[in-house]
């Protein structure tokens, strides 16, 4: 492999992972934009999405209706889209439920109180994922122990799209990530910019009290925000699972921190910022893996996070905001 090919390969890895991170980051940034809460549990909602997807795949496979290995080409994609929608809806409604039960009563409490509650929710979800992983189901390969990583079956065939001779590998998974995430992002942008509810979201983000005075049902707006954020997180978890072919009950912590870093990098509260930030973090990770060392990659990402927060807390695209006294 030449230098350029190595670099191109890392760009492909970086973009694919970055798109997944961007989807999760959107969930952080939307919620933060509306209720100013760092939804610490978002990463673990993502984890549960992965577990649901694995359970669905396993159930379908076990019932021999859809064996992932013997599917025809189009049904692979059908299965993938089905999983994205299922996991997305599951995570979306889970997110709404968490908001209703835990965050809503704390809406007027100090920010740190809300953050601590969110961390608490995160730990509860981690424990649920641990129990889920320990469920006595045949689908969970990769060791019976609850805490062990679970194998996620290969849904898309893994031949090189650039031809067998090419050193640079572009897999169908990479393509799938783009085919699924880009429409989601376009759809989200259109939704926020063109629809009535989207306008309500922007208004609530700017000033919740004024928005309520203008007749916007802010409770509904907030619920919709959690729903959409959760949906994107669930979709991301399916992409993550088919890309890495393994899930574990603690994967949400790392993914969540990457995504939060991406959201902060892009400017928290900004949708295009989260998308750009996600792709950038994906690229930074891939380059660090290749040119520094894999074991230092997390340090690099957290270093970026701290530097951004200290020197440019408004991020790349965020507006400078003075904190209200």
């Amino acid at each position, binding site marked *: 492999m030449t230098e350029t090919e190595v670099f191109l390969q890392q760009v492909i890895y970086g973009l694919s992972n970055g798109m997944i991170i961007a989807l999760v980051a959107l969930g952080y940034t939307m919620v933060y934009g509306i209720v100013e809460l760092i939804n610490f549990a978002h990463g673990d909602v993502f984890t549960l999405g992965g577990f649901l997807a694995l359970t669905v795949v396993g159930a379908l496979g076990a019932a021999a209706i859809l064996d992932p290995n013997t599917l025809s080409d189009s049904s692979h994609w059908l299965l993938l889209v089905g999983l994205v929608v299922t996991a997305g809806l599951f995570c979306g409604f889970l997110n709404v439920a968490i908001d209703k039960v835990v965050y809503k009563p704390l809406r007027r409490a100090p920010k740190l109180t809300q953050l601590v509650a969110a961390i608490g929710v995160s730990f509860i979800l981690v*424990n649920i994922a641990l129990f889920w992983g320990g469920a*006595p189901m045949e689908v969970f390969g990769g060791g019976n122990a609850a805490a062990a990583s679970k194998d996620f079956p290969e849904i898309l065939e893994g031949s090189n799209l650039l031809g067998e001779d090419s050193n640079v590998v572009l897999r169908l998974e990479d393509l799938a990530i783009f085919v699924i995430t880009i429409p989601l992002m376009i759809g989200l942008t259109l939704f926020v910019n063109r629809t009535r509810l989207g306008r309500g979201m922007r208004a609530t983000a700017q000033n919740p009290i004024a928005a309520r005075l203008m007749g916007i049902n802010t409770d509904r707006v907030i619920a919709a925000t959690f729903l959409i954020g959760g949906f994107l997180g669930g979709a991301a978890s399916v992409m993550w699972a088919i890309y890495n072919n393994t899930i574990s009950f603690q994967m949400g912590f790392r993914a969540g921190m990457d995504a939060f870093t991406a959201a902060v990098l892009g400017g928290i509260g900004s949708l295009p910022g989260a998308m750009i930030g996600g792709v950038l973090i994906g690229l930074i990770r891939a380059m660090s893996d290749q040119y520094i060392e894999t074991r230092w990659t997390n340090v690099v990402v957290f270093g970026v996070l701290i530097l951004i*927060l200290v020197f440019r807390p408004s991020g790349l695209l965020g507006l400078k905001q003075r904190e209200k006294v």
Partner: protein
Amino acid sequence: MAERRFSFFTRGQCIVLALLAATPLLDLAFPSIQLSGPMRTVVVYAILALGLNVVVGWTGLLNLGIAAFMAIGAYAFGILTAEVYPFQVGFWWALLLSGAIGAFAGWLLGAPTLRLRGDYLAIVTLGFGEIVQDGLKNLQAITKGTEGINPLPKPTVPFGAAIQSGLEIVGIASAPAATKAAEGVVAASSNWFEISSATPARWFYLYLILLAVVIFFCRNLEFSRLGRQWFAVREDELAARCMAIEPDKAKLKAFAAGAALAAIAGALFASHLASTGEPANYDFQVSILALCIVIVGGIGSITGVVLGAIVMVGLSNVVLPALTQAMQRAGIGSTENVLSSPDNYKYLIFGLALVLMMRFRPDGIVHTRKAVKK
């Protein structure tokens, strides 16, 4: 607080200390349990949580990376005492120095970050915790990676040998039989002041005395000029500034003090394990356990924090593992079924503790102490 130069322990603090002091008696009553060893971790976490309490409880800053300072203390202790390094300064000097190193690390992290908003600061401290943990794992030349630095020395009682020989001259401590009465089940050496794994109760009492010293320190810090500055900054930064308090400086001091206590807890932890252990011993979960202790015990209250340590650490490090073992021995639980192993409920307990405390005492972090009116 002008009438006395120092305030000693409050009634509540005496009660929790007495409660802890009584645990070796349980060893006497039930020789099969042997609580003194595991109870040392309770004391270590109590000190850690008292450090976090300075930052979270008194100054109102959320620090999610307190475990990093514990790790720094543990590794500083390891490097200062282990045989493979040239220093070997001994337990007490290493304990003091690791506290100082911890304070310096806290100052280093705090100086550029403390002007950040509350929730951003929390995330920065979290990131710092992860960086320290990964750094310790990766810098194998210094930290021995996942093996940890070992063996590390046990504590020694200062002047223990001198007192012992003095007692022997007077004729009190010559016979080993005398120690037997004092120590209960463990037939220890004739030296009353020698600490080893064969004398868990003595080791525990030494740690307990250190905890008492830390409580004494915190108690006198609390209503000192600095402590009152912290309360003022926590309640209203702008108003504090109007009172000629410099919030940034006060916060930095809180950060350094909290980090120093956490580092001392880390050093004691390393000595307790006779090894720094692997860096994962100081992960995010530990920071959250410390936060749970502070929040469950009652933010800002020294007595509450120590009580919280007894409850939370007792539950997660003593009761749950013991229950798991007991159930396995009785054949009720199995490793196959994840639900039947009590040890697997740890995250759930931490999470519920945080959520419920925030839900039903929503003002938790910011407005807690009525005592401020003193």
